[in-house]
């Protein structure tokens, strides 16, 4: 990785051009717009040549680290390999040029894909029906909670305005609940990170709309009392929401529908191999049990008896949550991945992810503090170094990993421990890669004792080093023209 300090605006020269467009042969042009509706100010867009643009963004890419670059054990983010065939099929011109409002008869391929992917996700999760419209995990959560509320409202059960969220949950869970107009009730974890069913029992009453759960939870531990929890929540009239952020270890092994969940979202950009794109586009399909299907957001796709696909709505739908029908090309990539897995390979996907996580955990638990020493699923959490005398923090460890060519794990989450290091290797990493990571982690634990200052100043070999985040937040400079 090489430091490169330009911004595109700094390459700009008056009169230079990077566009290639026909000459304007029309009689009328946008300058005919009346003065009171015309833009007066300069757009301040750069003027650069095409080679400048290509070189600039190539140089920027050289300061970035992706799954294609190296090991990315970012906990709860499931940074698995993003297959290249998926990219290729998703950019086929027949789909890329398809307008979302084309007549159904001219978009049957796209509608079939939407339908087929929904069916495949139903088979994989045990949920009856899906909407593929939500754009991301948090958007799926919000949509799922809207469905939950709509279900209660449609039954005239208007007093269910509270939702239970474990203290170990991802931050989006309580935030999605609040945006959906629900009051958040926090249920505490037991020392091993699983839900305290006694406390849960004391929270359940006729004001509870449901519970949001991540299983395995954010410590990577399976909630073994899930069937009992489902019975308790259903017994009080509530619904169970499954946050699919941690679905990867259950892929090919356990279906949320069989655990009693009524609503779930999946992160196609995690479990189903679509690239994260530096923060998006993702996709957060929502699946529901059959009694909730009519509340799914519209538009939806249905197949008729003649094998034709139609876009439909529903009177009882929770509503529209997107301009069109989701991040469509992301859906294509996820379906390509499912086709590659097929009914055979899917059986191994979750198990190999679990194997990789447990292998790292067992290989490092003598030098890093493992608060809960149990079988984990796709990920697990260390609470910093085992030897607390060095003063070396989780941040130091994370930054030192960058020097050794690895992306850092998720740090300081979950909030249950002070020095959380959350490691998720995924199933697409080889034993050699895991061994190399283990050996670097051991080396860092050793450095913490012998030369802790090297860790406190890390990283040393990256394009930039530790940043002044305080000044960035105190005096925000958010555009080039403020620099």
């Amino acid at each position: 990785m090489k430091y490169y300090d330009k911004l595109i605006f700094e390459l700009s020269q008056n009169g230079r051009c990077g566009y290639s467009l026909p000459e304007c042969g029309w009689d009328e042009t946008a300058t005919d717009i009346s003065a009171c509706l015309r833009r007066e100010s300069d757009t301040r867009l750069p003027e650069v040549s095409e080679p400048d643009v290509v070189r600039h963004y190539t140089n920027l890419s050289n300061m970035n680290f992706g799954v294609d670059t190296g090991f990315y054990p970012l906990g709860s983010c499931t940074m698995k390999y993003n297959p290249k065939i998926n990219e290729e099929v998703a950019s086929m011109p027949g789909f890329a040029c398809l307008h979302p409002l084309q007549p159904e008869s001219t978009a049957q391929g796209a509608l079939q894909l939407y339908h087929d992917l929904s069916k495949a996700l139903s088979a994989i999760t045990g949920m009856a029906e899906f909407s593929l419209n939500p754009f991301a995990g948090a958007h799926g959560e919000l949509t799922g909670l809207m469905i939950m509320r709509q279900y209660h409202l449609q039954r005239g059960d208007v007093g269910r305005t509270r939702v239970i969220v474990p203290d170990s949950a991802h931050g989006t869970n309580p935030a999605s609940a609040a945006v959906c107009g629900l009051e958040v009730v926090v249920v505490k974890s037991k020392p091993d990170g699983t839900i305290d069913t006694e406390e849960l029992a004391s929270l359940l009453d006729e004001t509870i709309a449901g519970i949001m759960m991540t299983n395995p939870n954010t410590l990577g531990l399976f909630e073994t009392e899930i069937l009992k929890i489902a019975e308790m929540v259903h017994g009080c009239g509530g619904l169970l929401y499954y946050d699919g952020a941690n679905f990867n270890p259950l892929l090919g092994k356990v279906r949320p529908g069989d655990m009693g969940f009524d609503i779930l979202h999946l992160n196609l950009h995690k479990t189903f191999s679509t690239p994260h794109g530096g923060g998006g586009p993702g996709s957060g399909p929502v699946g529901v049990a059959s009694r909730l299907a009519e509340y799914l957001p519209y538009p939806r796709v249905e197949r008729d008896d003649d094998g034709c696909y139609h876009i439909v709505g529903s009177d009882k739908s929770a509503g529209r949550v997107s301009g069109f029908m989701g991040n469509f090309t992301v859906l294509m990539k996820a379906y390509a991945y499912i086709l590659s897995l097929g009914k055979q390979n899917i059986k191994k996907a979750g198990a190999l992810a679990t194997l990789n996580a447990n292998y790292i955990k067992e290989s490092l638990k003598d030098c890093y503090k493992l608060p809960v020493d149990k079988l984990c699923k796709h990920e697990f959490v260390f609470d910093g170094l085992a030897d607390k005398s060095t003063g070396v923090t989780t941040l130091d460890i994370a930054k030192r990993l960058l020097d050794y060519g690895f992306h850092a794990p998720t740090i300081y989450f979950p909030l249950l421990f002070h020095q959380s290091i959350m490691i998720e290797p995924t199933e697409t990493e080889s034993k050699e890669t895991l061994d190399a990571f283990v050996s670097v982690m051991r080396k860092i634990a050793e450095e913490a004792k012998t030369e802790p200052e090297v860790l406190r100043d890390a990283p040393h070999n990256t394009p930039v080093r530790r940043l002044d985040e305080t000044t960035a937040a105190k005096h925000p400079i958010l555009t080039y023209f403020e620099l």
Partner: protein
Amino acid sequence: MSFPYFPHTDTDIKGMLERIGVKSLDELYGEVPDEVIYKGDYDLPDAMPEMEIRRYFENLDKQNRRLTVFCGCGAYDHYSPAVIPAIISRGEFLTAYTPYQAEISQGTLRYIFEFQTMIAGLTGMDCANASMYDGATSAAEAMLMAMAATKKKSRILVSGTMPANVIETVSTYAKYHGFGMDVIPEDGGVTDKKSMADELLAGDVAGILVPSVNRYGIIEDLSGLADAVHVSKGLLAVYSDPSVLAVIRTPGEWGADIACGDAQPLGIPLNFGGPYVGFLACRKELVRKLPGRIVGATTDIDGKRAFVLTLQAREQHIRREKANSNICSNQSLMALYVTIYLSLMGKEGMRRVNDLSYGGAHYLHKRLLETGKFSEAFEGKPFLKEFTLRTSLPAEKLHAALAAKGYLAAMPMGDDLVSFCVTEKRTREEIDKLVELIKTVEP
């Protein structure tokens, strides 16, 4: 069983299980209740090798029909230069996560900073976030933001000339979040500003949402709205296609507090509706109410210029249920499409795109009126690339007849109104062909 994405050999698995201290992969799920382990066969196709996957999608592709697009309605068929896919497909951009580790994410952080600058520049606002999911959700977030940034307000007002799918999305968010939303009727194809002003008198309005170019393609005169809403201590949010903001009056110039919309017209293919990229920009005073990721400039410990995710105290991972928005991700890669597109186009290119679209649209408009099958729906109202006419033909039948001949045009807009759109991609020849075809459609 061999599978190219799983690197494990049988020997690897055996050795790894030994270190863990279990005998089989199944035993790794020993704590999971047996009743929930799925033992059946998944109802999925047999695993496909790469060439079969390609064939599957090629066959699917044949079920789609590529139409010549004379339709906008929120998704615009602008030209996307060849440079974009070449850069976008670089694994360093494509396969990275959100730039949490700034030291090895300066590429993503820099292009987001450039994107924020360009969106702020186009909208005439002070700052912008790192992008939203799409236009409809950016409008919903703009309204959540208005509710959070104002005091003792209980509802929002949305112009009835906003695109229908945006109104419906905002209405879903309003219903569940628990604030009121009233749709202001239109008057002659534009927002009824008198009716808007009357509603504002009640004093309970957090924000109003109006389009700079509306669902009929009309460029709206938004003068007076900022003052009207500010008097009642609410906010003005303007919804725009940022491509046309290169030439028409900007949200900033209308005095808006928030600008939102969809940046798909800036280099993103139609993609059957997604992924696109929403944007959200605002005045600097409101930046701490702005949802989503924001990138700021700073320095590293050696004094080098660097960029970082900032103002994170606003966000869900810190504030949890107290956050104003639940948004976690952005549409980073789509923001990169836009950033590369605007870098190539520059000031002049954006003018040229709008001149070409304007010229083509006005030519089609004139030719359609000459056929005698159309009349003005909103006499004299200004438009740029999209316009709406009244037709004497049955609208649905006209639309279907054109689609059957390979044109997506004459989008039915209710009653006997139909909408058309012309971008720089449409040639005079294509427009003439469309007009000749329409002449043959029987009533």
